[in-house]
Every structure is written in structure tokens, then in C-alpha cells.
């Protein structure tokens, strides 16, 4: 992105107090750039859905400002809402409507003139065209999820919120969804999704945010995050069994496997020096030989769990 370009979504000092005093969002500050895919991770009740609901106009903010493409979500609600599409977490559909008519309704509701051609395009892209005359109640859960996405796309939004888009859908459909998200990104749509599936964020997001207890505790480029916070482990398969880690190697905090045949060295990928060279030299000095070695990197899931535990 051009650094001069204004963010498509800007949240400043956003707070949300529910009646009873519960604070669901605490001083949220966030910029999302045009064409990005941002994944918001967080445990249940962290504030992900509240954040999305405020931006979409479903929940009133207590304080702070939110702008979409430079327009305030309260003062210029028509401008902001007409460019936002929302796929809710729950499978809430008008059971007695047909797939086609529910899209016609959604498009009209968002102020767009009728366009059967565009609706056909959306339905075809989501493999729903052959179901266009079916009542929604007759569709499977996965198909209903697609209908919700189609409804959200029916008014040609430039910002799309997907609240747990793949919750409860099978692996194939999840992969299809990821493909759809990538295609939308290619068309220039900005996508903000909440998810419980770290794999999902790892797979499709450009940036990852972590929300816990109503606070954004991290917002980082996914690759940088993986590199910055991802722990690496060097696993050495020993030639001879060890009963204990030699005292001379104590500084490396090595872990010895139960059978005494593996040494595990944990290091971060952050620093310039990993300590591997020194470790190798010291192993040689200590007379510990190994016949194989490999490294593993911690997943986003582990990073996420660590962050949430730390912030809690």
C-alpha cells in the first residue's frame, strides 16, 4: 500500500460500555488499509463481534470515532453502511424466502437499484446459482453460510466483515471460503474477519490482530509476527543416551527427552544471534555427538495462546 493512502477504516479511542457497566471495548485504536485481509483473533467474549457491530451500526459506541473511507459511521451512516457488507456469525436467514429473492431484498435495502445480472454473478461465484429458487430453509448449514456471504456481497461492498465465517463448516467448504476471500481481495475488497481458527488467519490474513478483554493486544503483519514472536526449537537426536544435561551446558536451558536420546534447544527467531553456533561448539567440547537435527517453528496458535495468557 502507498503510505500516503488514507486507511479505509480508522477507529480512534473506541469504548463500549453495556448497560450494567460491562466494558466490552477498551480504547480501541485501529487503522485498516484498503485491500487488506485482517484477521481478528480472540477468545469468546473478547469483544470481536462488538467491534464489528459498532462499525456496521448494529451497536452504538459509548465514545470514540470510527470512519470508513473518511466518513463518520454516525454522521455519514448512509455513506459508510452502503460500502460495508456483513456476514454475521449466526446462521440468521429468512427461512421462507428463496435464495434469489433474499439477495434482491438485501441489494435494495442497501440502496442499490435492481440488478439481476449482478445477483446472478454473485450466486454463480458462490456455487448457489442452481439453488436460486430454493427456499433457504431447505438448504444445508454450509449453503446457508454461502447465502449469508452472497447477501453481504449483493450491494457490491468495498469493505467486508466476516464474523466467524467458517464456524461449523466442513474442511472443503472452509477451503472454498478462503478461495472466495482471496478472489474478493483480488477485486480490491477490504476484508476483516474474526475467527477462532488460527489456521484460517495463518492461511489468508495479511495482518493479524489479537483482542482480549476488549483490548487489542496486538496488531501485526502476519509474517512479521510469525518471525518476531515465533519460537523455534532445535531438536538433536543423540548418538548415545544421556542421563542428564551436563552442567557445562546449563546456560542453554536444554531439555532432555525422557529416553535421554533427544536434546531440545529453544530459541527465538527475533535476535540476530540464535546461539546455535555456540551450542554446537559446546556440544563438541562436552563430547556429545548427534546423528540428526531438525528445527520446528511455533504456530500462530501458540503465539495467540501465549499472548492471551500473558494479557489475562
Amino acid at each position, binding site marked *: 500500500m502507498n503510505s500516503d493512502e488514507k486507511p479505509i477504516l480508522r477507529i480512534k479511542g473506541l469504548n463500549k460500555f453495556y448497560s450494567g457497566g460491562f466494558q466490552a471495548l477498551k480504547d480501541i485504536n485501529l487503522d485498516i488499509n484498503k485491500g487488506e485481509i485482517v484477521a481478528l483473533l480472540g477468545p469468546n467474549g473478547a469483544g470481536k463481534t462488538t467491534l464489528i457491530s459498532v462499525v456496521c451500526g448494529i*451497536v452504538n459506541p459509548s465514545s470514540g470515532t470510527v470512519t470508513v473511507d473518511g466518513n463518520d459511521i454516525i454522521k455519514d451512516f448512509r455513506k459508510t453502511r452502503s460500502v*460495508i457488507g456483513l456476514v454475521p456469525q449466526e446462521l440468521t436467514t429468512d427461512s*421462507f424466502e428463496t435464495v434469489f429473492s433474499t439477495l434482491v*431484498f438485501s441489494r435494495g*435495502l*442497501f*440502496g442499490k437499484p*435492481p440488478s439481476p445480472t449482478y445477483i446472478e454473478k454473485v450466486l454463480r461465484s458462490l456455487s448457489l446459482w442452481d439453488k436460486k429458487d430454493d427456499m433457504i430453509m431447505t438448504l444445508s448449514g454450509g449453503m446457508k453460510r454461502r447465502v449469508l456471504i452472497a447477501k453481504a456481497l449483493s450491494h457490491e461492498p468495498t469493505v467486508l466483515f466476516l464474523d466467524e465465517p467458517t464456524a461449523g463448516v466442513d474442511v472443503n467448504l472452509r477451503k472454498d471460503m478462503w478461495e472466495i476471500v482471496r478472489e474478493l481481495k483480488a477485486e480490491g475488497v477490504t476484508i476483516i474477519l474474526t475467527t477462532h481458527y488460527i489456521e484460517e488467519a495463518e492461511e489468508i490474513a495479511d495482518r493479524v490482530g489479537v483482542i482480549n478483554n476488549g483490548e487489542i493486544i496486538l496488531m501485526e503483519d502476519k509474517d512479521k509476527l510469525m518471525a518476531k514472536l515465533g519460537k523455534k526449537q532445535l531438536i538433536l537426536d543423540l548418538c548415545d543416551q544421556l542421563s542428564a544435561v551436563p552442567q557445562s551446558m546449563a546456560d542453554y536451558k536444554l531439555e532432555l527427552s525422557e529416553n535421554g536420546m533427544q536434546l531440545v534447544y529453544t530459541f527465538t527467531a527475533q535476535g540476530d544471534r540464535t546461539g546455535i553456533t555456540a551450542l554446537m561448539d559446546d556440544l563438541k567440547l562436552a563430547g556429545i555427538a548427534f546423528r540428526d537435527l531438525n528445527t520446528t517453528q511455533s504456530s500462530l496458535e501458540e503465539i495467540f495462546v501465549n499472548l492471551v495468557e500473558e494479557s489475562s
Partner: protein
Amino acid sequence: MNIYGIMAIYKFEMARTKRTLVQSIVAPVITTSLYFIVFGAAIGSRIDQVSGISYGAFIVPGLIMLNLLTHSISNASFGIYFPKFVGTVYEMLSAPVSTLEVVLGYVGAAASKAVILGIIILITANFFIDLQIAHPIMMMVFILLTAISFSLFGFILGIWADNFEKLSIVPMLLVTPLVFLGGSFYSTDMLPEPWQTISHFNPVLYLVSGLRWSFYEISEVSVMLSLASILIFMFVCLGVVYYLFKTGYKLRS
């Protein structure tokens, strides 16, 4: 103004009527016919005239008012309550539609359905009695204003209700008794005191009286008073609806 948004809500609500044609149209027609058979033919044959009009003809405005009130309320309240109940209301709340546009869509559809029903009842009544309408334009004004006002009232009820019991309790326990006690099927002159005076505190009496005047030029209260009451009620409802959306009461947390 989001005309497409208004039309989307309006058409959606009207389509719901098509799906429930028996419940929406056929049932009220059958019920009205039964009223004419029971009150008009069976009981009415033993009552000579009320205020100089045959009993069968006398009850027509009351029957229309009964159906207008109950159906305006039920159509509008169900229209907004059901999306809340199933969760699809998120779409309306996140759409670029203003309070006025949402109200025009939902209340417009509910009022349209009630007016269509009123006309169907009028046509049904014509099969049973020789119907005469002295002031057809004023009749339409009363029918329209009543349908709009009580659709607004139903809309408020639908927003307020958080279960099906609340949704039906007001029409059942408040509106129906008020209609029955509001001179729909009798003239309040026939009541002994103090009931005659008490009846004048019933707002429905003013509606029925006004509508009956447009048919037969007889009324229990002045026509202007009837018009004024329905207009006041309509503006009060509009004010409440505006407040509900402004504050997000039971819609936006």
C-alpha cells in the same frame, strides 16, 4: 432518501402476505361473514333499527374498524418482531436506511394490508346488506389514518415485545375489548349511566363514530373530534417511534 431500501422492506412484507394468504385475507373474510350471519341476520333480525339504520348496516363500520385495528397492529408488530426473533434484524440495522425509511417500509406495508382488508370486508358486507356510503372520501381518510396510526402502534409493540406472549397480549387484552366496548356493535345511547359516560373515555369510540358518520352521517361524537383524536394518536406514535430509533431501544445495544 433510500427509495430502494423502503421498497425492499415494503415488498418483503407484502410478499409475506402472499405466502400467508389464507391467514391474512381468507380468515378475516370468513370471520366477517360469520359476524353478519350471527349479528346481522340472527340477532339483527330481532333488532329493528339503531339510530334509524338497520342493525346489519349499523355494524359495518364497527366490523371494518375491528379488522383495521387488529390487523394493522398484528401485521406491523409481527413484521418487525420476527426479524428480531430470528436475528435477521442485523441486516436492517446495518443498512443505510433512516428511521423514517424503515417506518415507511414496515408501517406502509402493514397499513396497505389493513386497508386492502378493510376494502375486502366492505365488499363482503355488500353481499349481506345494501351498503350506502355518504362520504366515500372521508371514509377512506378514516380508514387510511386508522390503518397508519395503528400500524405505527403495532410497530412500537413489535419493538417492545421480547416474546410472543407480549406480542399478542396487547391486541387480545386491550384492543379487542376496547373495540367491542367502543360502540362497534351498538350505540352508546343504548347503555345505562354511568357506562355511557365511561364509554366516552374509550378512544376507539371516536374512530368508530367517525367512520360510521362517513357511511350514514350519524355519529356519537363530532366528526372533527374523531379526526383530531386519530391524528393526535398518530403523532404520538410517530414521536415514540422516533424516540425508539434515536435511542436504539431494544434494537441497538
